[in-house]
C-alpha cells in the first residue's frame, strides 16, 4: 500500500487544488487586499488606505445601509417561513395521513405534491425572474395577480407589485420562498424517513394527536436537519441578488426599496467603478456568513437523541 503513495497523491491533487487555488482562493484573497485600497478597478494605480472603506460603508445611507437592512429582513424571514412550510408539508406528506388501520403514512397524493412542490428548484433564476415579473406586472401589462384582483373587484397597486415601494421586498421574498420550499420539503422528508415508525405508533397508542406527534416526536429528531437547513437558507439569504437584478426596477428599486447587499456590491464594482469599496462590503458579507454558520453550529446544537 505504501509503494508510490506520495507521487500518486500529488498527481491526483495537483490539478484540482491548482485550479481551485488559482480561480477561487486567490481571487477571494485579492478581494480582501483590494478592500484595503482606494483602487477604482480601471487603472493600475492605488494606495493602501487601511480600513477607510469599511468606515465609509456605514456612512452610506443611500445604498449600503438600506441594503443591509433589507438583507437582514430576508435573513430572518426566508429561513423561518421556508423551514416552517417545509416541515409542515413534509409532515403532512409523510406522516400526517395516518388513517388506514393505524399505519403511518402521508396524505393521499403525496407523490404528486412532492413532484410539483420541488419543480421550482430546477428552474433557473432567470426563468423564475421572468415568470414572476410578469405575474406581478401592472394591469396594463397583463399581470396575473393584478388581473385576478381586478376580476374579483379588489384594488391592485396601479404600477404592479414590483414598482411599489410597499410591496417590492415582500414580493421578492415570496418568490424566494416559493422556489425554496420544495427543496426543504424533500430534504426534511428524507430525514423523516429515517425516524422509526414504531415511535409514532407508540405515540398514537398513548393518544398523541398530530400536533403532539409533530412537536414531541418529529421535531426533536429532526433538529440536526433544521439546523443544516437554517445555515443553507441563511447563505442563500445573504447572497440574494440575481432575482432582484432580474425583477425589480433599477435593479434594487423603486427608490432603493429592494436594494440588497449583493446588488450594492455589484453596483459599486461594475457600474460605479469603486472596486475597493465594493470589496469591503463583500468582505463584511463573507464574515457575516461565516459567523452565522459558526453560531448555528455552536448554539444550535442540542443533545443528540440516539436511536
Amino acid at each position: 500500500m505504501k509503494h508510490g503513495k506520495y507521487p500518486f497523491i500529488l498527481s491526483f491533487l495537483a490539478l484540482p487544488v491548482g485550479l481551485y487555488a488559482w480561480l477561487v482562493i486567490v481571487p477571494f484573497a485579492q478581494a480582501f487586499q483590494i478592500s484595503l485600497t482606494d483602487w477604482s478597478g480601471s487603472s493600475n494605480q492605488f494606495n493602501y488606505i487601511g480600513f477607510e472603506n469599511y468606515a465609509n460603508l456605514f456612512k452610506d445611507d443611500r445604498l449600503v445601509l438600506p441594503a443591509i437592512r433589507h438583507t437582514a429582513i430576508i435573513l430572518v424571514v426566508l429561513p423561518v417561513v421556508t423551514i416552517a412550510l417545509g416541515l409542515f408539508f413534509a409532515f403532512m406528506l409523510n406522516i400526517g395521513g395516518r388513517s388506514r388501520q393505524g399505519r403511518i403514512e402521508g396524505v393521499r397524493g403525496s407523490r404528486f405534491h412532492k413532484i410539483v412542490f420541488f419543480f421550482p428548484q430546477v428552474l433557473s433564476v432567470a426563468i423564475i425572474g421572468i415568470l414572476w415579473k410578469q405575474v406581478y406586472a401592472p394591469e396594463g401589462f397583463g399581470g396575473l395577480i393584478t388581473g385576478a384582483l381586478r376580476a374579483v373587484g379588489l384594488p391592485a397597486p396601479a404600477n404592479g407589485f414590483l414598482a411599489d415601494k410597499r410591496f417590492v421586498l415582500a414580493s421578492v421574498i415570496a418568490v424566494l420562498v416559493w422556489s425554496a420550499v420544495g427543496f426543504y420539503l424533500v430534504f426534511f422528508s428524507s430525514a423523516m424517513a429515517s425516524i422509526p415508525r414504531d415511535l409514532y405508533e407508540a405515540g398514537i397508542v398513548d393518544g398523541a394527536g398530530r400536533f403532539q406527534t409533530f412537536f414531541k416526536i418529529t421535531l426533536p429528531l429532526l433538529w440536526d436537519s433544521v439546523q443544516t437547513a437554517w445555515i443553507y437558507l441563511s447563505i442563500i439569504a445573504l447572497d440574494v441578488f440575481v432575482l432582484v437584478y432580474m425583477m425589480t426596477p433599477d435593479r434594487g428599486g423603486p427608490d432603493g426599496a429592494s436594494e440588497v447587499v449583493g446588488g450594492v456590491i455589484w453596483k459599486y464594482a461594475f457600474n460605479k467603478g469603486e472596486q475597493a469599496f465594493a470589496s469591503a462590503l463583500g468582505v463584511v458579507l463573507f464574515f457575516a456568513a461565516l459567523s452565522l454558520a459558526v453560531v448555528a453550529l455552536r448554539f444550535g446544537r442540542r443533545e443528540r437523541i440516539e436511536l
Partner: protein
Amino acid sequence: MATQTSTETETPRSAPPGPPREPKAEGAVMNVFSHAFLWLWALMVIVPVVWVVITSFKTTREIAADPLGLPAAPQWDNYVSAWTNGNIGSYFINTLQVMVFSITGTMLLGAMAAYVLARYEFFGNRLVYFGFAGGMMFPVFLALFPLFKTLDNVGLLNSYPGLILVYIAYSLPFTVFFLTAFFRTLPTGVAEAAMIDGAGHYRLFFQVMLPMAKPGLIAITIFNIIGQWNQFLLPLVLLSDPEDAVISQGLANLALRQGYEGDPGALFAGTVLAMVPIFIAYVIFQRQIQAGLTAGAIK
C-alpha cells in the same frame, strides 16, 4: 400544457378506500385544513407556470388587455421569433458546449481530489479538505472582479475555455465535500483485496473505487448539471459577447430587449423553450434529481 396534465394522471390514485377515519374532531379539521393548504401550494406552483405557457401563445395586445383569457388563436410566431431573433437555439448549443467539458472536468477533478482526501493519510490532508469545504461559504460576487481580471490577464476572458475552468473551480467545493464523505463510506476490504492482487493506486481508483462510488457520483453529477445549467452570475461577468451567451444569460438579455422592443410574446415563448428540456428531464428523472439535490444534506 399537455405534459402538465400527464403528470397529474401519473399520480397514484390507487389508495383503496380504507375503513372510515376515526371520528376525531381534531383529525377532521386538520385534514381539511392541511389538504386545502397542500393543494393551495400546488396551485401556486402550477398556475404561474401554466399561465406563462398560455401567455406565450398570445398576441402582444391579448397579453396586455386580457391577462386571464385564452388566446383567440395560438401565436406560433412567438416561438419562431424567440428561436430566430431571440437566438434561443444557439444559446442552448452554447450552454451544451460549455457543459460537456465543465461537467466532465468537475466530476473527474472532484472525484480525484475527494478520493485522495478520503482514503489517504498525508501531511496537509485536513488543510486541503477544509480549503475546499470552506469555499461553500464564499459569496461569489466578492470574487467576481478579481476573477474577471485574472482571466483577462491570461486572455481567457470572453472565452468558453475560461468559463469552463471557472465552472469547474466553483463547483469543486461542494463536489469534493460531498464525494469525500461518500468515498469514506465505501468498505476498505475491497480496496485491500485489489491491492493484494497487485492493482496499483491508479487502477484501484479507476477500476474499483469509481464503479463502487457510482450512486454518489450520479447524485452529485445531477446536482452539478442543474447548478451549471442555471448559472447566471459567472457568465454575466465573464462572457460579454451576447452571441456567446449561455441560456440563462441569453434569456435575461431577451428580457432586457423585450423592454424596448415590445415583443413580450417572444420572451415568454423563449422562457417556455428554456423550461421544456428541464421539465422533461425533471419528469423522467425526478426521483434521482430530488435525491441528488438533497443528497449533500444527508451528511
